[in-house]
């Protein structure tokens, strides 16, 4: 089932890889995946209803993470993310890099058990689900991320962009336009 989804959404696969690479934290040493990295085996150039990866940039490094919703003090050395979560984000990134989206999702869920109100983790999970072709699920997860991202307009904008893509994918262009509009009003990308 997942194979078919990847086949349908090669662009999204690449996209999730880029996203994970960009968001995994600030100071930790993670293999850097540059923009334009060759797609994982089996992927092709962006096709299908999903817009190109360039339209969905990563969360800027150093972006404060849901400043109001963090319940436990996080280590300042990791830019707001607890080291355990950073380690798992690294792993999810690697898994997404090799095209193993199922595994990346499982790893993100594991990170969410440690840091359940981390809006960025929810956003990543949404991205992976979209790459897997689960547009409905992706939209719900992005909404969940937004509900935890008070004050983080940049992340909210990204979630709305993801919702727009999910709606495009589901064949709801007017819904997609509305979501794009929301993303734009949330300010500069």
């Amino acid at each position: 089932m997942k194979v078919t989804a990847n086949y349908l959404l090669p662009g999204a696969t690449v996209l999730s890889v880029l996203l994970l690479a960009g968001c995994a934290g600030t100071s930790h040493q993670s293999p850097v995946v540059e923009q334009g990295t060759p797609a994982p085996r089996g992927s092709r150039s962006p096709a299908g209803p999903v817009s190109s990866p360039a339209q969905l940039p990563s969360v800027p490094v150093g972006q404060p993470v849901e400043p109001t919703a963090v319940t436990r003090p996080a280590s300042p050395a990791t830019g707001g993310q607890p080291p355990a979560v950073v380690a798992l984000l690294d792993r999810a990134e690697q898994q997404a890099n090799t095209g193993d989206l199922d595994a990346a999702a499982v790893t993100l869920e594991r990170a969410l058990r440690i840091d359940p109100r981390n809006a960025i983790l929810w956003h990543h999970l949404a991205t992976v689900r979209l790459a897997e072709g689960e547009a409905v699920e992706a939209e719900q997860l992005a909404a969940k991320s937004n509900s935890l991202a008070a004050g983080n307009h940049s992340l909210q904008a990204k979630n709305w962009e993801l919702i727009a893509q999910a709606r495009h994918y589901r064949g709801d262009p007017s819904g997609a336009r509305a979501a794009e509009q929301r993303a734009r009003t949330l300010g500069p990308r």
Partner: protein
Amino acid sequence: MAKRRKRRRGKSRKKTAQRRSILLRVLVILALVLAGYLVYLDYQVRHQFDGKRWSLPARVYARPLELYAGLPMTAEELSAELSALHYHPVSSPRQPGEVSRNRNVFHFISRPFVHWDGEEPSHNIRLTIANDAVQQLVDARSGRPVSLVRLDPVMVGSFYPAHNEDRVLVRLDEVPKELTSALIAVEDRGFYDHHGIAPLSILRALLANIRAGTVVQGGSTLSQQLVKNFYLSSERTLTRKLNEAVMALMLEWHYDKDEILEAYLNEVYLGQDGNRSVHGFGLASHFYFERPLAELSIEQFALLVGLVKGPSYYNPRRHPERARERRNLVLGVMAELGLVTADEAVRAKSRKLGVSRYRRTAINTFPAFLDLVRRQLRRDYREEDLTTEGLRIFTTLNPQVQWQVEQVLDARLGRLEAGRGLDAGTLQGAIVVTSIQGGEVLALAGDRNPKFAGFNRALDAVRQVGSVIKPAVYLAALEQPSRYTLASLLDDGPLTWKAPNGKTWSPRNYDLQFHDRVPLYRSLAHSYNVATARLGLDLGLPTVVSTLKRLGVEADLQPYPSLVLGAAELTPLQVTQMYQTLASGGFRTPIRAIRAVLNADRMPLQSYPLRVTAAVRPAPAYLVTTGLRHAVREGTGRSLYQVLPASMDIAGKTGTTDDLRDSWFAGYTGDRLAVVWVGRDDNQSTGLTGSTGSLLVWRDLFAHFGEQGALQSALEGIEYQRIDTATGLLGDGGCQDTVELPFIQGSAPVEMSPCAGAVSPLQRPVDWFKELFE
């Protein structure tokens, strides 16, 4: 005469020929029968061996403990977890499964384990706990910090088939050489040379036994023993012996030695655990030593090998002396054959048996939770698969929480009975604890006796819910911000509702008073029935029903007016689902007890991924949570804070039904949700309200949990305003009673209350300061 004789001779010749031909026929038939029988035996041998050799019960695991700096956990909790995992206390850990503890510093070597998402290798870890949290986690050898370590999970149960056999399957290459060589030395020295039966070895065994003056060796080969265990009954007849020999030969014909040895290692009967028989060395190792085979020492191998001859006669727990003699005899044989040096054998012989204290193995450690797991699995698996396929089921159970739940429920019910003069055992209860965002069931109690495996009240007690249903009514209202806000004044004056059939309904408040006009949040906090009934009727019952459905309540809900005061009958689990959606900000997550299922080869069969559905908009859900926060700060739940620290951020709701039959409390923090029901199985009065019964259970539980994450404190599109509670308008220090309330943007009142603005601006900061210190 001659003619006659001739004739007779001819006749007899004919007869002989006839006889011969009959004999021949009989022989042919016999040969055919024999051949058929052999074919049948051969089929039996191969079918059993190739086909499903063993039916393996499904194993159920708790959540694995994830250790990382910052994890809230006391040293005692970590100690309890490691003990449940059978980590052995030593002075200096040298192999997986060993731990040393010096006050708050733990040093342990974790066991490698194949989780549902891959293998976690062994880690050598030094861990420090300070202020009830993991402070530091380092690799004990390099001293480098480790970000995250996942332990092996506690096994909490198994789903057994009717015949109660159990095994921990081992592959030959996983079995230490010492064990196999000792086994072969003692049980079948010629194993690698014979073809299934070994007349010489019978002789050799006889001699060895004479020499030892006792029975050291049996004459049966391992293949014969395996055949006996595998296919035949235990009767001692010549036919059986013959069958055994023939089948042993066939077994050897079809399979190589290693295959036979591996099967033997997993099949041999090695003990009895209650009504469960212990088969194979893998399980025996856990049963006698609480360790996997790979962690055993030489004398422990010797003991297990010694047991083959008579697990009951040499039972090391019941007959330690016999067991020791037998073990040392095996060690002697091993030394004789050079499998160990003489010195090693002497040292090993002097050691203790090292057998753990008998604990009934965890078939049914947490029956109520396992019941839930089983029900969730039945959607995807046949009962037969659960008991035979060796599935590995990874659940969400948190043993720490489960232990606390079990301890708290029975203790508190006992105190409640004593306080009310009720006979001990009159009250019953149920608890469901879940994680807020993931909807994972952390613990479950279906009876005050945690070992009781019968009626599971958490899943099956369908009881009136009373006021715990009210948040749904208020949610339905707050979803219409143009009509209702937390500050809206509700009418709590007398109400009589006329049904179409002419009957009337006049709800009353618990305190039998009417409260005139009350702000909406306060009506919820104090659980005013009349105001709530009027609100529900204004909203329309279908609206309330549909809100309940969106929250995830899957039950037949009748749109009678009494529904809004909790006339509905739900199980504790259904109530939990409703609060789950509220607690997680309006996102419904089906309550899960299972994370993943692997097959016996540790390949993923099924995962149960985290799914969320935006069932309610986050803003109204946030407002309801605020109302429920007020309920425990100033309303029906305020006795929580007689015990819990004021810093604990809680939202919760009591529920009481007619004649005090049911006592409910549903409450959540930023981390956990717990729903508690207390009542009687005969549905008589308990004499308890929600706050004098279930709330106390909940309070005990969260006192055990310790520090909890705060409730969500901000949401996009929410603004705060100070409100005069008398008018529901904007207020300030000039008003008698004000409260800061959240509003969906644009819905807050814009009008100032008459009391506001009377104070000069200069005085206001002073008042503000005063409030800060009050």
